[in-house]
């Protein structure tokens, strides 16, 4: 078929809604999607069960035909249990933490006890002599930190400057953990202490101790974060970034406020949250002449391979990364990290595998965190609710790392002609931040969604009705949210909502609502290989990793669908960088990226197989059908033969096809070398019911209803599970989690799971999930992600419920008794 022009958009708008027209595209203006031969393809578009229409897309010729809605499918869209569930609950699943190799050595880090110091000397001789020690390495390069724009300021220093208590200085590898720990204590480091600052507001002061002696840069990692290059920096304050992710500003906010009937100008504060994955960061490095093998607890094997290749000057082909299972990441597990750097150096020196796994304390201190924030948010609106101006000034500290912004919702979620954002990174002598399940957006939504609620009350409008009026960009996520508000309100009983502060007694109940929005991202360089072996067994390979979401299972489901098999019939292999490149498990992009590639490969296998089976069935290849574990000729049930028997009859050794994830059929709003960013988002809405004990300040979240869209749900059971996790994490952030640093020493006081408080079973609300099936006609599976949106709205929904319960706004997180009692007295 000829390369034809796309005429496919039936919604009459290929640009975002009016309010967003002035936005500049993000990182780069993308080329037209999918060059090469294409066909015009009619595809279903819309929300299943609502209005499904046909759109025509320009689709590469070798893409499989569009899938119908899930109800018409056999494997995709079904609540299949995790294929590796039994492995996990029986302990057979091998996490990096569990990796034991012959001759493996145990690594231990030496950590700085001071929050800011120059290292004058390091004496490793006693450690090197300690029995059982096989290698010692002193760090000469530090990762996971901002870098001086002009390194001359610290040129004379032999070792990286210590900028936070707990910063790794050196590592030891020994025959036993005990020997490694004892030897690490023998490394003598002479420090020249420097003045330090750990508090956000203290660090913003002009005369505050400088964390860096000059301006810094912090490129983003594959996990996100970072800040645009070349921003001004004064003291510890770097910024403003006025175009987070390339979005905004627009219009003239001053004029907007002048034209507003209502102005809401308030301040929000959020805390530092650490990731606390069940499995800490860790890496086992095995350096051999023939190449380097890395067993990594990671969200992206590609980033581990690439960093190892870069820092050790190895061809990428000589670095193999293996990751059978990752025990959670939430954004923090990218690259090799300082612990990985040490492990590789030590393995190279000792010529033996070295295990380097962070303990719980280090995981809190240096494994990453969500930056805190101070947000001054000013909204201007007309009496009818239409927004006229949004102005945000935000400061946050990611410790020694940049990337403390509060997201992009201010310019993207609601229609508003005048938007201005100034986001500042403030450096402090604290461990580095990392991307964290909807980086920035969680903090930003906490403020924005409360202010929108406040506006609704000021103009006497129902909060949902106000959103109906202003959440009107013609993107798929906005369309989905409109539907979600309707469905959710009915299910939740929103109409029974009472005026704020209705309860008379000390325990006050209330309900609240907030919206979620995240990017719909595609990992561009995603491939998948599917093999049909001569005995009828089927395998699928992807160089992605499973951080707990069930990636193997959805891979198997998609392949099974094409071949008419059950998911458990498919050997689904992930976790090896030698497989075709897979997506990063971050930014809610695995399912959206992997499943189209997998389906494309499986489809090619199925067509190839059909042509080989045609002679066996004495039929045309086009008439060969795979269904219910059988092969048959279309319309001839009597011809049905079990899949395996049929394949054996075809008499081949193996059919293998590799296919790629094509660009979204509609194209992207922006691209980076790794990512395609759709103009559509993903999101949802969440309703919360809380009980506030106004005498003790204890907040209990009793119920959450989460209504979410994720394109086509490939596996509703796993999707719901991920939404449960997002809500639980959101409640935990709203009520409990907070890193406490001692300002005097720079040490984290609650670097454990005892005093770092996380939601427990009794604090977990009753959670109900409603999933939309939304077809966007963008790829061969139309799947999108859900991980981040599940966590974005929760804290804001709880805060809005708090207001409805008590009649008081809580603008400071977490909602501890101390903060709650202060808010109630305000």
């Amino acid at each position, binding site marked *: 078929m000829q390369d034809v022009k796309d005429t496919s958009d039936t919604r009459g708008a290929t640009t975002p809604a009016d309010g967003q027209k002035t936005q500049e595209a993000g990182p780069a203006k993308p080329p037209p999607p999918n060059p090469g031969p294409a066909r015009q393809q009619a595809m279903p578009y819309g929300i299943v069960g609502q209005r499904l229409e046909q759109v025509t897309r320009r689709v590469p010729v070798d893409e499989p035909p569009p899938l119908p809605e899930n109800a018409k499918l056999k494997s995709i869209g079904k609540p299949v249990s995790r294929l590796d569930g039994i492995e996990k609950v029986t302990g057979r699943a091998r996490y990096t933490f569990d990796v034991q190799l012959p001759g493996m050595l145990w690594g231990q880090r030496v950590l700085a*006890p001071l929050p800011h110091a120059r290292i004058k000397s390091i004496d490793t001789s006693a450690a090197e002599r300690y029995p059982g020690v096989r290698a010692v390495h002193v760090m000469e390069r530090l990762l996971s930190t901002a870098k001086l724009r002009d390194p001359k300021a610290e040129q004379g220093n032999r070792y990286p400057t210590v900028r936070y*208590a707990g910063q790794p200085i050196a590592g030891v590898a020994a025959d036993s953990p*005990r020997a490694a*720990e*004892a030897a690490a204590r023998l490394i003598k480091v002479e420090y020249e202490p420097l003045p330090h600052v750990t508090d956000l507001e203290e660090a913003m002061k002009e005369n505050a101790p400088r964390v860096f002696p000059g301006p810094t840069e912090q490129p983003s990692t594959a996990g996100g974060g970072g800040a645009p290059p070349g921003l001004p920096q004064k003291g510890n304050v770097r910024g403003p970034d006025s175009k987070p992710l390339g979005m905004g500003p627009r219009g003239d906010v001053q004029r907007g406020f002048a034209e507003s009937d209502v102005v809401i100008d308030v301040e929000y504060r959020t805390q530092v949250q650490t990731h606390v994955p069940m499995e800490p960061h860790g890496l086992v490095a095995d350096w051999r002449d023939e190449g380097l093998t890395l067993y990594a607890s990671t969200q992206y094997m590609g980033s581990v391979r690439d960093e190892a290749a870069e820092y050790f000057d190895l061809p990428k082909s000589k670095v193999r990364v293996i990751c059978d299972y990752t025990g959670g990441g939430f954004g923090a597990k990218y690259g090799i990290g300082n612990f990985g750097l040490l492990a590789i150096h030590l393995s190279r020196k000792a010529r033996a595998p070295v295990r380097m796994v962070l303990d719980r304390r280090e995981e809190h201190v240096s494994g990453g965190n969500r930056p805190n924030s101070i947000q001054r948010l000013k909204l201007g609106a007309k009496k009818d609710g239409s927004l006229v101006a949004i102005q945000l000034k935000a400061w946050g500290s990611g410790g020694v790392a940049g990337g403390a912004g509060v997201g992009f919702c201010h310019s993207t979620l609601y229609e508003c002609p005048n938007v201005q954002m100034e986001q500042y990174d403030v450096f402090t002598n604290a461990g580095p931040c990392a991307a964290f399940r909807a980086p920035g957006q969680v903090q930003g939504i906490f403020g924005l969604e409360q202010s929108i609620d406040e506006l609704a009350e000021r103009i006497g409008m129902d909060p949902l009705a106000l959103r109906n009026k202003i959440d009107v960009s013609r993107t798929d996520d906005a369309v989905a949210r409109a539907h979600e508000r309707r469905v959710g309100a009915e299910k939740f009983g929103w109409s029974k909502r009472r005026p704020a502060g209705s309860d008379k007694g000390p325990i006050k109940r209330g309900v609240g609502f907030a919206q979620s929005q995240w990017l719909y991202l595609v990992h561009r360089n995603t491939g998948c290989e599917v093999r049909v072996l001569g005995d009828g067994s089927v395998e699928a390979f992807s160089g992605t990793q499973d951080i707990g979401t069930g990636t193997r299972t959805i891979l198997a489901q998609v392949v099974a669908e094409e071949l008419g098999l059950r998911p458990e019939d498919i050997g689904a292999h992930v976790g090896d960088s030698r497989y075709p490149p897979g997506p990063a498990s971050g930014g809610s992009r695995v399912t959206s990226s992997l499943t189209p590639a997998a389906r494309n490969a499986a489809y090619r296998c199925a067509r190839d197989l059909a042509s080989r089976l045609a002679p066996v069935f004495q039929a045309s290849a086009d008439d060969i059908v795979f269904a219910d574990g059988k092969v048959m000729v279309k319309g001839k049930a009597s011809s049905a033969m079990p899949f395996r028997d049929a394949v054996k009859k075809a008499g081949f050794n193996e059919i293998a096809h590799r296919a790629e994830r094509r660009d979204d059929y509609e194209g992207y709003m922006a691209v980076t070398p790794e990512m395609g960013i759709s103009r559509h988002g993903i999101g949802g809405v969440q309703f919360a019911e809380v009980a506030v004990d106004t*005498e*003790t*300040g*204890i907040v209990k979240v009793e119920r959450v209803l989460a209504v979410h869209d994720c394109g086509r749900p490939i596996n509703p059971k796993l999707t719901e599970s991920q939404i449960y996790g997002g809500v639980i994490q959101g409640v935990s952030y709203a009520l*409990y989690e907070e890193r*406490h*640093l*001692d*300002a*005097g*020493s720079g*040490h984290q*006081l*609650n670097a454990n799971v*005892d*005093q770092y*408080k996380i*939601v*427990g*079973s*009794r*604090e977990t609300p009753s959670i109900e999930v409603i999933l939309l099936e939304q077809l966007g006609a963008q790829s061969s599976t139309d799947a999108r992600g859900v991980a981040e949106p599940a966590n974005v709205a929760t804290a804001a929904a709880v805060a809005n419920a708090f207001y409805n319960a008590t009649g008081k706004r809580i603008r400071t997180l977490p909602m*501890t*008794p*101390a903060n709650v*009692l*202060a808010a109630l007295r305000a």
Partner: protein
Amino acid sequence: MQSFEWVDAESVEQAVTLLGESKDGRPVVAKAGGMDLLDLMKGGVLSPHRVVNLKGIKGLDGVRFDARQGLELGALVTLSRISREPEVRNRFVALSEAAEHAATPQVRNAATIGGNLLQRPRCWYFRNEHFHQAGGDDLARVRDGQNQYHAIFDNQRTAMVHASTPATALLAYGASVELVGPGGKTRTVPVSELLLPPDMKRPRDTVLAPNELLTRVRIPAPAAGTRAAYHKQGERESYDWPLCDVAVVLQLDGRVVRQAAIAMGWVAPTPRRATEAEKLLVGRPVDEELARQVAKAAVAGATPLSKNAYKVSILETVVRRTVLAAAKA
């Protein structure tokens, strides 16, 4: 954690002898459930030369009640058993409630009442190896630092609080402990005198001598008309250290209070009796208004630190609610 020796003690005498061998730099420590000990060792706060395991000693895991003698708990009785034992539940509900709300089910299955009473403070400065090595003024560090969970009373010399929550209930019940030293020398010490204000520079926060063993806990038999209630207020319910905990034991004559004990934990270096508040109760029937006055009196004289004034109002609420709960029990 550093290497250490392990000895299974077979008798109280043997354990006391072994503990008597403790020296500076070569500490010998006792282990019952091992809950606190393991935490301290993993945190680098305690590096014993030798650990004396008490779990094999016979006769220290009994629960006995006698209408004249009262309740006797062996030091090795676990918290989960205290929370379930009918003699405790029926007659000393504040204690069984305190045991039931401590830690987690797993910890309660292993933790003993003896070990619980002798545990070190949960202060996050105390629990951090760094602050033991750093030297300096331990109190100033807390006063200038993160003191949201610290003492709101009697905090002029230390702001750390004792961690045991059963101690709060035991204090309200007028309990005492039996301590055994060398040669079987036995002394009985009231819980109110057992606990000392915590100190980072001391190896323990009790009057227990290095060569003594806590062997039993005793609570006098309750008088007729005794009612009690206990409440632990944490930020979380699932598993948390308290912001405060309160035990109230009332002896009622009809509706009129004859005797009252209000004990408050986690608000002072050691669990504290609200003596002025108790006086308000005696001779009167408990109602909402009286409970309000009692609670107010219980927090009078509080001297909160920079970040823990919120604990004062929470304590006031919890005292009021627990007094009312005890009267209704």
